[in-house]
Structure formats: structure tokens, C-alpha cells
């Protein structure tokens, strides 16, 4: 069975062709990084316009790489949200057009669930598990009992973790994408150089907050000279504070709910230090820490195809009226 997956929820136009559950025939991601580096961030209107310009050509490229024609696709999976609504709608409308013209079912999926389940492209994971999806746009913790059976345990109350990284990097003018720049600088830095706060770390819930950490960082920058000598140390301390909270609260949720597996996905999950912290601390609690490969951590069409494949198998398809949405309901 062949499923096409489409994701246009943020800056990348991504399409993939998946045969059954794990055989990826093609996985095309248009990185717009070159364009956006100029702006120091994602420029929304340019992003949605780019999606419109790129999607048809990338669809053809995806078919060509997969060596198949559109008519042999059995189902069309697409992200319906959450994300940048103008961008989401480009992918959703394109998918609806394909579904209509090819006469194949549309399967609209949730971008966050697709991130949480992207690991199934590479391996099976026993249910239940806790999924942490952490990226530039999202920081959300889910309890996953099966495909389509998930519950939001907590989320950020202000900034996404990756967003705080990007904003600090932009504030300091040290480059884009901020998360990657900060990871590289931090690798050479001393993690306890500055004692940044760990917002909400002790609160008895599974929510996060990163705007206070961002403000502490800005206050620190205003009061101290940032030089080539201390930049690495300051960045390492900032990154450590954010990751300490992410790991502590996710592991606490696993302990509280007596769940022995944690899956981390989303763009920030490709950060080497985040992986290290999770692996080390999970080991202490006899919890298994699992990660998608970096290529499936960033936004991609393959994860959408994987989730859509499962829904298709279970007979859950969407009507051509499926609506796009920008925000995920938390409760």
C-alpha cells in the first residue's frame, strides 16, 4: 500500500511516499533556510507563498524519486494543523485537490501526533509511552496509548523551547537557526557558568514555561559583557536550564504514571545534548528513552504518511471538508 504524506505547517514544504509502514520511497523537504537566514527567522507570508510556488514541483519530484505515478497512490495524508494557518491551508488544499482528482481517500492528521509517532517509521514502540514534542513552534507532552489514542499531559504556557532559543540567538545576532547555533556554541561551553532559573520545574503539573528563562537571559546579557571568551559558557548554561526542565518534568510524568518509555520528537529532539540528558537520567529511573532520527525530527512528510497509513488501515479517513486549524486544544 502506498501513502503520500504532505506537511506545510511551517517553513518547509515536505512530501514523502511511504510503502506500507516503513519503506520510504522518497522524502522531499524543501529547506527554506537560505531564504530565511536573511530575515533571522521564518517570515510567514514568504513561507506560505513559497509553499504555493514549490508544492506542485515537489509533488512531481516526490513521485519521480519514488518511481511511481500519482494514480498508484492509495491514500493522501496531510497535516491539517496546528501550524501557521496560511501555510497549513496550502498543503491541505493541495491534498484535497489530489484526493478529488485521483479518487483516493484524504487522511488529515495532527502535526503534533505525527511528530510523536514518527519513530514508527524506524521501529515499533510498545504502548503506552510518554511523547515529548519540542520544536520552534511547540512544546507539548502527550500520553500515547495507541495510534489516535492520546491525551495532552502538559504544554508550554508561553514560548516554545525552540522559539526561546531562536529569539535569544536573534537578539544576540549570532545566527539562524538559533537552536543549532546555540547547540554548537554550547558544546564548547561550561554548563554551570550562569545559574539560570528552571521555570516551573517543581510545580506539580506537566506544563512548561520558557519566557521567564528568556527574560533572565536578556537581563544577564544587559548586565554583562558578552565576549568570545564567555559566549559559549553563557549559551551552554542557557541551553542546560531549558533541557533540565524538559527532562525533569517528562521523566516525572513517566514516574507518576508508571510508564517505562519516553519518546522525544520535534526539531529540538535532534539536539545532541538533549538526547544525552534524557538517556542518562532515564537510565537512573529504568526508563527507556527513544528518539526519532534527526531527519524525522524536523518537519517532514514521512511522519505524516506514517500516521496516515495507520489511520487508513483502521478505516479512518477524512471528508473533503476537513478544516485546517492553527492551535491545538490543550484541555
Amino acid at each position: 500500500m502506498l501513502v503520500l504524506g504532505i506537511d506545510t505547517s511551517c517553513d518547509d514544504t515536505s512530501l514523502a511516499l511511504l510503502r506500507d509502514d516503513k519503506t520510504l520511497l522518497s522524502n522531499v523537504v524543501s529547506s527554506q533556510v537560505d531564504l530565511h537566514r536573511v530575515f533571522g527567522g521564518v517570515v510567514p507570508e514568504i513561507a506560505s507563498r513559497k509553499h504555493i510556488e514549490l508544492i506542485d514541483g515537489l509533488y512531481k519530484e516526490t513521485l519521480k524519486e519514488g518511481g511511481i505515478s500519482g494514480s498508484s497512490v492509495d491514500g493522501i495524508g496531510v497535516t491539517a494543523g496546528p501550524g501557521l494557518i496560511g501555510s497549513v491551508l496550502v498543503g491541505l488544499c493541495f491534498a484535497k485537490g489530489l484526493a478529488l482528482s485521483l479518487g483516493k481517500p484524504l487522511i488529515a492528521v495532527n502535526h503534533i501526533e505525527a511528530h510523536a509517532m514518527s519513530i514508527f517509521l524506524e521501529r515499533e514502540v510498545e504502548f503506552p509511552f510518554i511523547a515529548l514534542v519540542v520544536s520552534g513552534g511547540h512544546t507539548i507532552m502527550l500520553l500515547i496509548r495507541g495510534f489516535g489514542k492520546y491525551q495532552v499531559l502538559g504544554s508550554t504556557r508561553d514560548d516554545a523551547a525552540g522559539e526561546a532559543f531562536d529569539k535569544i540567538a536573534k537578539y544576540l545576532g549570532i545566527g539562524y537557526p538559533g537552536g543549532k547555533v546555540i547547540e554548537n556554541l554550547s558544546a564548547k561551553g561550561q554548563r554551570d557558568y550562569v545559574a539560570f532559573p528552571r521555570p516551573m520545574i517543581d510545580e506539580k503539573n506537566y506544563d512548561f514555561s520558557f519566557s521567564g528563562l528568556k527574560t533572565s537571559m536578556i537581563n544577564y546579557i544587559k548586565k554583562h559583557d558578552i565576549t568570545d571568551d564567555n559566549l559559549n559558557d553563557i549559551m551552554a548554561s542557557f541551553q542546560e536550564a531549558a533541557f533540565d526542565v524538559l527532562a525533569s518534568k517528562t521523566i516525572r510524568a513517566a514516574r507518576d504514571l508508571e510508564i517505562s518509555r519516553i519518546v522525544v520528537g520535534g526539531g529540538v529532539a535532534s539536539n545532541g545534548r538533549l538526547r544525552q540528558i534524557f538517556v542518562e537520567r532515564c537510565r537512573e529511573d529504568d526508563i527507556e528513552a527513544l528518539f526519532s532520527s534527526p531527519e524525522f525530527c524536523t518537519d517532514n512528510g514521512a511522519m505524516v504518511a506514517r500516521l496516515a497509513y495507520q489511520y487508513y488501515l483502521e478505516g479512518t479517513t477524512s471528508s473533503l471538508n476537513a478544516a485546517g486549524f492553527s492551535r491545538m486544544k490543550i484541555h
Partner: protein
Amino acid sequence: MEKKEFTSKSPSETWDIGALIGEKAMRGELYAIYGDLGAGKTQLVKGIARGMGVEDWLYVVSPSFTLMNIYEGREMNLCHVDLYRVEGGENGDLNVEEFLDEGVVAVEWAERAVWWDGVIKVYIDSTGEEERKITIVRE
């Protein structure tokens, strides 16, 4: 011109000030919010949401990524806009004025757009590490 000043000593005091705004907010009002990174613009909008009776006001998050989030209040909607990533003066594509029929619009990084007469301007100035001066100006 009517000018009101508040002092906030913490993010939760900023919520309270936002809630005062939200309680009195009227359909069709646009709040243009000005303040540096980390000033507490999202915190103020969280408070406005609380004042407008948005049930999950605690989860009013930064819309830097999604550009715009819509929340359902008690009597009308709150449209939360963030122009942080918009630098090319492309706010015209957003058509925020369309949302004024449904309720209140609050715009973060308002300096990145040009506004019409009659918008309510809210300035958040850092006067200390935690302390903020919040000035509301109605022309």
C-alpha cells in the same frame, strides 16, 4: 487623549493589569502592544484573555510561530497577533481588521506595522529586571 499608567512588579501582576484591560475591552478595539523582547507582551495578552473570560487563558501562548491565535471569550473572541517574524511590512496580508467584528485584537510587535487612527497603544517599558511600566494611550 487619555493616558493611563500602571506599574507591574512581576509577570502575574502583568496578568492582573491585562485582566483590567480585558474586562473593559469592547468589540472592535485593537490594542497595539509595544515592548522589547522579554518585556512581557504575551503575559499582558494572557491577562487580557483572563479579563475577557477565556477559559484556558493560562495557555495563551506566544503566536510568534503561528502568527495569529483566536481565543473564545465570554462574550466575544480575542484575536492574538504577533508580528515578530514579519519584517517586510506585509501586515496588509493579515487583514486583522476583519476580526474586529468578532471581538478584540491584540497585536504584539505592533511597531512592525502601520496602524489606523483610533487603535489603543500599549507600551511596556522595562524599568528593572522584573519591573515594568505599562502605559495605555487612547487617542
